[in-house]
């Protein structure tokens, strides 16, 4: 058993997530084109790591105070509502650790995925962070079924370039209010 750091999640962090979701209203204007190549480099690299199921490498790209969040209500406050998942780094490690036990039946056989990342925009934030928004479709094939998971994603990058790292990843599934097929891979 590896010693684990305490969760960084507190009231301030939740408030930051809520503010991030509302940051698109009013319209912040077009993205900054000069940020786009570095953001796309990171997004495409992340997509490949996930499609290759290199989950440990993927996790390395997150900061210690990161959050990976799949909300149910695109306007919801996670303090008062349940999400599909809202993970800090500790629970992300659990999610990956679960797959590594070899007994996660829902991933036996594992999903094969192909994700398309598009409509990328980016804006600078204070403190050297970068806000990125994109549209993603994850095509999942497992057993006899091909299932699309379409979402609008929000990212806060702590850094860009070859050492890119993610602080927040928010996956807003377009059908999060509808009946979703179970998923146990990383979106």
């Amino acid at each position, binding site marked *: *058993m*590896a010693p*684990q750091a*305490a*969760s960084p*999640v*507190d*009231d301030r962090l*939740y408030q930051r997530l809520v503010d991030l979701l509302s940051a698109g209203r009013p319209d912040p204007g077009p993205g900054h084109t000069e940020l786009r190549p570095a953001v796309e480099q990171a997004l495409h690299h992340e997509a490949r790591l996930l499609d290759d199921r290199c989950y440990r490498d993927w996790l390395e790209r997150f900061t210690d105070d990161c*959050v990976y969040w799949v909300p*149910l*209500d695109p306007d*919801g406050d*996670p*303090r*008062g*509502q*349940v*999400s*599909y*998942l*809202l*993970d*800090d780094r*500790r*629970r992300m*490690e*659990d*999610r990956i*650790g*679960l*797959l590594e*036990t*070899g*007994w*996660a*039946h*829902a991933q*036996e056989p594992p999903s094969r995925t192909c994700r398309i990342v598009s409509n990328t925009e980016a804006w600078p934030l204070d403190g050297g962070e970068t806000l990125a928004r994109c549209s993603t479709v994850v095509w999942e094939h497992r057993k006899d079924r091909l299932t699309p998971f379409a979402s609008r994603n929000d990212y806060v990058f702590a850094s860009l370039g070859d050492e890119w790292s993610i602080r927040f990843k928010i996956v807003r599934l377009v059908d999060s*209010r*509808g*009946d*979703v*097929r*179970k*998923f*146990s891979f990383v979106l």
Partner: protein
Amino acid sequence: MNALDALVQPDRVHRSIYTDADVFNAEMSKVFGGAWVYLAHESQVPDPNDFLASRMGLRPLIITRDSDGGLHALFNRCAHRASIVCQAECGSARRFQCSYHGWTYSNRGDLVNVPYPEGYPADFHKAGHGLAQVPRLGTYRGLIFGTLNLDAPSLAEWLGPAGPLIDGFVDRSPSGRIAVRNCQRMIYRGNWKLAWDNAGDGLHPTFAHRSFVILNERQHGGARSLSQFKASPDDTGMYGADLGNGHMFVDQRPGLHQSFWETQRPVPGREWYAAQIEQACGDDAADVLEVAPGSMINLSIFPNLLIKGNHFETVDPVSVAETRLHTWMVAAEGAPDEVNVLRMRIAEDFPSLGNPDDLELFERCQEGLAIAEVEWVDMSKGLGHDAEEVSADGVVRAPVTYEGPMRGYLRAWLELMSSDVKLTTAAAGEVTCEVAA
């Protein structure tokens, strides 16, 4: 469909109860109509004129609270040409107007306006053309149930020994009240009774949730969530019970070696929120924190409500081989906000890490059930075993891995399916609502 009795035998059930569309169609009236069906919780329609979309089997419903606070379960179906009249999941409305031809109803279900009223036959009266509704409603600790069967027993009788167990779940809240919040919606390709079998099944966690048990041991150590199922669960004192009328109970509490809070896997925010509670509540902090983790019980109210952990799971059949599972988050009213924030993260913990394995296994069962020549599903574990105890109220208790709760609910299912149930609907003003607790 023939000879239902032959399909449910003491030690086994026939595959066709999971695969036969005729059985499914009969269930949609005799069970999801003839029995008391869970519809919603009062906290979802707290104020006058609130409404919530729901279902009773395949029937779309609008649960409304009228301006005087009365509850109604209106069929979401225009009396004119059948279009559903309400598209929203929830909200506040005094009127529901059909978009197709403008017929307009009150939230009691009365038809209040028909456009261009001239031209209807002389004997056309608005009073006879309101929204049809569920004729019998009942509430128990805020849970709203309905039945189309005027001959069904009272709700209190129907719940029987399940009633005090609902009390136990609700009374974990300091105020004695709960609030149902939002829900995760999942769908699986399998019969609805596969979820029902699973809810009373204390044999499966050791195997179906092996990944979860191993993970917790590796990452967090000690006796964490579900570790009581790691080996020999029957030596822990955990038990399952057949409560009658199809209701089932699995009690994991005797398997715990420490408090709920200490047993709970760490979730996001655990440390900060616990520190806030410790600061605010002093010596009471341990008791306050004990409300955050799940209840450590599985209480199944036949035919469609599974109370697990801190949530309500509603089992909503779509077709013989497709089912919606909606997992509703339940907040503890009167507990500090910090407790309910922790409950949010806890309520998405097992559902996102453990439930996918259950759903996968339901789908694998449905695949196996396709083989017509291999007809039987075995449920014999514990049958006739002297470890089964029957209490004065008829509750049959047995070690947790025994399959008695499943056999019990299927006996109740068979009784309903074999009965000659007469279903009716009511018009506005003809509805009864009984308060069982």
